């Protein structure tokens, strides 16, 4: 069971966890990304490439399913304008084994952070700026290819 949503709306991590807990695995791992309100940030604006995003995320979920014995995978990525404290992204995994659930969760969020076709723009009171890609994120995603 795997499901990917790219959406503007917020989501409910509790409902997602409940579905994963019901998948019959012994362990459920999750990661939720939240907008940080540092440096006077007023909002983040997330742009994406709709023709590409869902297909790409589904492809990487397929890789995770090939690599780990997962009973459930759920990925949600929001786009549009998000304010500090709002959720951006959710990855949840269920498996009989805790290590599989935790590793697959880390793999998916590393990939989403470094290779999914999303671009973030920071809005401050007096200016806006596009976030620059971080070499560290690329290195994380690269480490899974070893």
């Amino acid at each position, binding site marked *: 069971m795997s499901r990917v949503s790219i959406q503007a709306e917020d989501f409910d991590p509790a409902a997602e966890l409940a579905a994963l807990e019901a998948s019959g695995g012994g362990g459920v791992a999750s990661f939720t*990304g939240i907008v940080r309100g540092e440096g006077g940030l007023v909002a983040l604006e*997330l*742009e*994406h*490439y709709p*023709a*590409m995003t869902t*297909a*790409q995320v589904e492809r990487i979920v397929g890789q995770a399913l090939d690599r780990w014995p997962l009973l459930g995978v759920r990925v949600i*990525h929001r786009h549009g304008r998000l304010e500090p404290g709002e959720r*951006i*992204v959710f990855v949840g995994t269920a498996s009989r084994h805790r290590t599989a659930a935790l590793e697959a969760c880390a793999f998916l*969020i590393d990939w*989403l*952070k*470094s*290779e*999914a*076709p*999303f*671009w*973030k*723009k920071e809005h401050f009171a007096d200016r806006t700026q*596009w*976030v*620059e*890609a*971080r070499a560290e994120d690329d290195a994380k995603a690269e480490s899974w290819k070893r």
Partner: protein
Amino acid sequence: MADLTLVYFAWVREAIGRDEEQVARPAPDVTIGALIATLAARGGGHGEAFARPEKLRAALDQRFVPLDSAIGEAKELAIFPPVTGG
């Protein structure tokens, strides 16, 4: 054969002032990098967006490819900065 559709994201889109445009299809062996250089020579928004190719990434028909890839028969070429998702 039909024109090539270019799609732009993030500051590339903002500099050019549109999210999509059609251009005359180049020969199949023309690379993305060469097309970008041609477009940069137009100056204006294109000149600004494409001034530093090392800051650009691309996808051909929704697949990430290096800038030295030939455009071939692709229908859609996307040009954008490195992704910053999640």
